[in-house]
């Protein structure tokens, strides 16, 4: 990193300075907090918001006095936006961000592949939205500052972690001295160099990949549309790869691969970067004046902890896993971590589920990480071939792709997709009579409901029971079952998908039957959806006993799991 991290400056963004506020612990008060989140980055604050949504009081610690500097993670996937809308922040992301649906890959100057990501009227959000991480952090933190249950403690550095049977004690260093902070649970969202992870002596395991990229933000006026552009063996970076993304505020992200022999410090010198970027901008055909905004260097890793849970300490985001940027999975998988652990912690803290529910976090989210590793490793080997053999085949695929579909598939950047918690201990066996719809473990997809908006905006705060009804009526026993299925004291929301009958807050009209079709449903079909909108059970014909059983299982209650 070359632009100053301690005092970030920017051509377009004013970094705030958050004051240190003296906490009561420094004056001798002893409090055990419900949850302490370490790290006020996007994953940590998302976790705090999700916890607060379920009524949990949270302290968020961060050693900085401002946001992370630089644009960093800029691509937010649709499935993340669908999760963030439950936190009441997605609209602000949409208003500020740049949506995109396609991309173009070039080989030696010629277009060879057109990426088209599925998008339809059924979806409220675009497949991808470009937004700099400063804005992501700003919007999340400003939203969190409106939550009475969330307390930020800036300029507070974790220097020690003492796990205990009933609580965790953190040693916190501040400008006014050190103190002990106690919490029932700690969420470590403190990034790739996690102080919590280091304090516990835990190591990430995995692999480092070939190829280093300099990541540069440039301020430049251009009317080129928002898309992902990938240039292989191009005039702007002969023999190597360049990626270009548009960001809001006339900022352009240019990632260029370094030669294996390039010296890192020389490569990061401002003059070197200026020359390199000038060549790439000339290749793009841009003629407007431009300025360097921010830069960094990147190397691809597939590293993760062996277990994301260590007693009362749970790891999420980069503190738990490092994934390659190709496919934009880093922050997006961090958001999913936060949404996965939030409701589980709330249920445990409210006594609605035992501590065993937290044991599901690592298998589900580490499973997602390993799936990412498989996909991202292939993407990384394509973007930065590690050997001559890979390079020969990659270039052959690029050369054949204009005329051959089979080769084009290799160019697909395998963009971030939501993970299906197949085989999760919280899920029931799928009903084999379904021939369509999201399988058990998959996230519920969105659907357009005419004047009633979109399906996902109607989900409940806790569990949601989707009941498909021809006439809009639902069995009385279903209402009773929903009342008993609570998350942080909030009963399950019954949402009736009706072919006909009255529309109201609980009933979505599916006049043309597309929601029925999308879910493979018939009159009487039912889905049980978790607070993080993953399906944990479904039945072509619902049964009261099966629904109750599924809820008990989804809460990891001892009598059933």
């Amino acid at each position: 990193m070359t632009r100053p991290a301690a005092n970030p400056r920017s051509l377009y963004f004013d970094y705030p300075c958050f004051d240190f506020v003296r906490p009561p612990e420094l004056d001798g008060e002893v409090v055990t907090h419900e949850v302490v989140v370490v790290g006020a980055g996007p994953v940590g604050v998302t976790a705090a918001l999700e916890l607060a949504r379920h009524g949990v009081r949270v302290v968020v610690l961060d050693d900085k006095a401002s946001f992370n500097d630089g644009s960093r993670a800029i691509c937010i996937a649709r499935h993340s936006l669908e999760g963030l809308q439950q936190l009441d922040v997605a609209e602000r992301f949409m208003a500020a961000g740049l949506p995109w649906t396609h991309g173009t890959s070039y080989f030696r100057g010629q277009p060879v592949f057109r990426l088209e990501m599925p998008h339809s009227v059924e979806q409220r959000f675009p497949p991808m939205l470009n937004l700099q991480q400063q804005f992501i952090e700003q919007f999340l933190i400003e939203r969190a500052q409106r939550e009475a249950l969330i307390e930020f403690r800036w300029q507070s550095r974790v220097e020690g972690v003492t796990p205990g049977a009933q609580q965790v004690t953190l040693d916190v260093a501040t400008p006014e001295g050190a103190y002990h902070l106690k919490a029932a649970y700690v969420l470590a969202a403190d990034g790739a160099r996690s102080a919590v992870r280091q304090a516990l002596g835990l190591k990430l395991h995995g692999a480092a990949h070939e190829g280093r990229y300099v990541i540069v933000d440039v301020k430049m006026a251009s009317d080129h549309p928002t898309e992902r552009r990938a240039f292989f063996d191009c005039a702007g970076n002969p023999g190597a790869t360049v990626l270009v993304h548009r960001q809001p505020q006339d900022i352009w992200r240019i990632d260029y691969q370094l030669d294996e022999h390039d010296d890192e410090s020389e490569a990061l010198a401002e003059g070197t970067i200026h020359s390199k970027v000038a060549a790439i901008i000339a290749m793009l055909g841009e003629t407007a004046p431009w300025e360097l905004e921010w830069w960094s260097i990147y190397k691809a890793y597939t590293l993760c902890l062996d277990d994301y849970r260590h007693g009362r300490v749970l790891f999420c985001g980069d503190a738990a896993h490092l994934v390659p940027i190709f496919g934009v999975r880093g922050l997006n998988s961090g958001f999913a971590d936060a949404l996965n652990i939030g409701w589980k912690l709330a249920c445990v803290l409210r006594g609605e589920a035992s501590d065993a529910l937290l044991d599901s976090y690592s298998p589900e989210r580490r499973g997602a990480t390993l799936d990412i590793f498989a996909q991202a490793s292939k993407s990384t080997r394509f973007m930065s071939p590690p050997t001559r053999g890979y390079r020969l085949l990659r270039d052959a695929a690029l050369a054949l792709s204009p005329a051959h579909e089979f080769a084009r598939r290799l160019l697909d950047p395998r963009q971030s997709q939501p993970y299906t918690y197949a085989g999760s201990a919280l899920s029931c066996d799928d009903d084999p009579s379904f021939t369509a719809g999201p399988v058990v473990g998959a996230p519920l997809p969105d659907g357009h409901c005419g004047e009633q908006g979109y399906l996902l905006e109607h989900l409940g705060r806790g569990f949601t029971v989707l009941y498909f009804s021809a006439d809009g009526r639902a069995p009385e026993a279903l209402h009773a079952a929903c009342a008993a299925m609570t998350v942080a004291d909030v009963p399950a929301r019954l949402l009736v998908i009706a072919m006909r009958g009255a529309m109201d807050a609980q009933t979505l009209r599916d006049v043309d039957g597309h929601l029925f079709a999308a879910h493979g449903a018939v009159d009487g079909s039912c889905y049980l959806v978790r607070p993080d909108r993953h399906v944990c059970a479904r039945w072509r014909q619902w049964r009261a006993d099966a629904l109750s059983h599924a809820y008990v299982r989804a809460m990891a209650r001892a009598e059933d799991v």
Partner: protein
Amino acid sequence: MFEQRLPAADFELAYERLAAALDSVGPGRESEFLARLALLLMQAAPEISAVLAAIDAAEAALD
């Protein structure tokens, strides 16, 4: 345009295996290796038209 015969996962597996084989034989013997591989795959091809089309496509992609 070639009809997709191998499932995507199998194709990716073969891609990885071939990359490793190319690295194994080394730069000096890549052409020799690829020529032998081509002959073997020709023999596995279902019909002559597929082989001739592949030769034409590979030539065209060199332009």
